[in-house]
């Protein structure tokens, strides 16, 4: 009798811990029933396409949150990088370089510049012991100000057409008669159906996210990240150079923000200072829905992506149903708070072990 009860309790716990998956499923069923045309390859790709920002910024936030910190600056660093990349690419094409080369060079330089804000806030957090909230808010202000100064005379226009082709292109195209083609939209008459598969930027984003998932799960770097978040003292005692590691984490976070800024530039072929201003809530919500704790030591990349997908589907589904995006903020706020409450109802096994002993 008692074992039966225990088994039931364990089963409930197991289900409860996977509430995010169940919620995702329920969400898909709901929108499938109520939003017209929800079940289609186009909508599925739209979710991933518009979700790249929240996936990338969520992953950035995840690394910082696992160490017990927070990074408020990711949204504005994204805007900053989008502007920096347009400026560099514009300058390079003006000086007579080819489109491809200037685009590539612009992206590489932006990624390098994207490391600097993280380096500064990392040093502040690690060496000067500035609370992460303050250090990254200071960085938010600084990057916002610099972005606005950079686009004082208006955002750079006339970027190479190639940027748009990459940002809004797909890996595979198929149309009857022409057959499959890669990266190039087949030249067909207007009105002829072309099947578009896998947006380029989704590939870019998931390549980056895949590497980071590997980094967090399988490498010493990842182990140290969890160790610092779990217990700083024991991390120090076990010989981890915590300060150095924290600097790396904040650099990684701002590097990811730079990638999402570049993706923004590719998608919209322009830079915008507040491109990621509203994504603070989304990115932190994705991490928390994915089971991470703000006190650190917990969280995985794939569960964060799961959280991101939940938000992205919510947004796309509501858009399909014609519900104004205002409701999205309300929903995400409610889901964020519920995530914490549900996680407390179904604690991890390690946690209960500690409580019982």
């Amino acid at each position, binding site marked *: 009798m008692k074992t039966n009860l225990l088994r039931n309790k364990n089963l409930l716990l197991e289900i409860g811990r996977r509430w995010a998956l169940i919620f995702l499923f329920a969400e898909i069923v709901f929108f499938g029933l109520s939003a017209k045309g929800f079940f289609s390859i186009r909508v599925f790709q739209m979710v991933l396409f518009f979700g790249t920002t929240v996936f990338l910024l969520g992953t950035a936030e995840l690394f910082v949150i696992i160490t017990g910190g927070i990074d408020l600056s990711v949204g504005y660093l994204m805007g900053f990088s989008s502007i920096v990349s347009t400026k560099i690419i514009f300058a390079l094409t003006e000086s007579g370089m080819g489109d491809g080369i200037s685009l590539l060079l612009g992206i590489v330089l932006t990624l390098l510049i994207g490391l600097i804000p993280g380096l500064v806030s990392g040093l502040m957090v690690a060496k000067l012991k500035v609370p992460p909230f*303050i250090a990254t808010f200071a960085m938010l202000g600084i990057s916002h100000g610099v972005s606005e100064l950079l686009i004082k005379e208006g955002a750079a226009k006339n970027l190479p057409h190639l940027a748009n082709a990459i940002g809004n292109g797909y890996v595979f195209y198929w149309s009857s008669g022409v057959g499959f083609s890669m990266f190039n939209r087949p030249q067909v008459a207007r009105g002829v159906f072309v099947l578009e598969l896998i947006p380029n930027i989704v590939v870019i984003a998931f390549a980056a996210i895949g590497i980071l998932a590997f980094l967090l799960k399988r490498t010493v770097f990842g182990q140290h990240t969890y160790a610092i978040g779990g217990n700083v003292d024991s991390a120090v005692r076990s010989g981890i150079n915590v300060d150095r590691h924290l600097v790396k984490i904040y650099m990684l976070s701002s590097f990811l923000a730079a990638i999402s800024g570049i993706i923004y530039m590719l998608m919209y072929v322009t830079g915008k200072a507040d491109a990621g201003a509203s994504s603070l809530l989304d990115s932190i919500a994705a991490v928390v829905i994915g089971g991470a704790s703000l006190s650190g030591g917990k969280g995985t990349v794939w569960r964060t992506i799961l959280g991101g997908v939940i938000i992205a589907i919510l947004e796309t589904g509501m858009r399909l149903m014609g519900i104004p995006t205002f409701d999205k*903020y309300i929903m995400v706020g409610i889901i964020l708070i519920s995530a914490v409450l549900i996680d407390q109802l179904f604690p991890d096994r390690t946690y209960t072990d500690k409580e019982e002993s």
Partner: protein
Amino acid sequence: MGSSRADTIRGNRAFSVIAHHWAAFFLLIFIVIFSFTGKGFFRITNFQNVIHLGVIAVLMACAETFVIITGGIDLSVGFVMGFSSVTAGKIIQVMFAAGEGTPPAAAIITAVAAVLVLSLIPGLISGLLIARYQVPPFIATLGMWGITNGIALKISEGFPVAMLPDVLTKIGNGYVFYFRKGTGISLFGLPEGVGNESIREFTRLIPNSFLFLGIIVLILWHLLRNTTFGQHTYAVGGNEDAAIRSGIDVKRHIVKIYVLSSFIAGLAGIFNVFQTGIGNFTPFGAMYELFAVAAVVIGGASLLGGKGSIIGSFVGVLLIAFLENGLLISGVEPFYRFIAVGLLLIIAVVIDQLFPDFL
């Protein structure tokens, strides 16, 4: 800090006094510098403007002060303000438009009363989540950030709530004293028979907003400094266990703190309607909550709790406000304000660590 503590105290006493009040010293230095660089900076009208435009920031910072002293954070204040502002605007708009007979005063009073009550709700919810259900303050109030913002946008349908009675801005942007040579002093408005076109001939002193701000800040200052409520606030933030052991109902107190914070944000929203004459939702880029946290930290509070004061936060807001105004008047690009606030924040924390409290 390297040598013994006693040495440091003796040697650097004067310096540490400056360090502990660095924000006030910075404020003085800024005012002196901008008086030289900015034409028209050192004028009563300009100072009045700075504070008049800073009323909302001061209120936000006061709200955040209470929360930060308990070791929490309230990210929702900015959007609670927007929520209150559009709600008040909407109520006035509907009542004003509904019946010809409804006097503006009735509509305004109803709206103010309703919003003051409604503004308690977000704080009550986040307070309960934090105190009873152990949701981290950051998450609870970030959730409320999204919810109140969404509701504000829904009520206003994405546009400011306009077509409100003119009385609002007359009160919100009016002055206590109007003075002109020959005409003499009149209170709360131009003297009878003087048209609005000659308003520039009058010296206007003490905006009505000062009275409003002064009364609220004074009450909050008294509440934090001289009452049991204030003592408990510091106790909860300093050491929660000790606070529990000394018999304070910590959970209840924390709920009260978030309700208070949200109430003050509600007041700011109401003031916003009087100041602008429309109900405004809060744009994402405004970041009231973050600037409020910045002001509180510059004012000497610690995010770990147990430290902070209303006066300090007030000085923090003034420092940011005068810096922005001074830069603007001196012809510096307005975007530098973000950079300047960022740098000030870093200075604040670094100075705080170089000169830890001796007492």
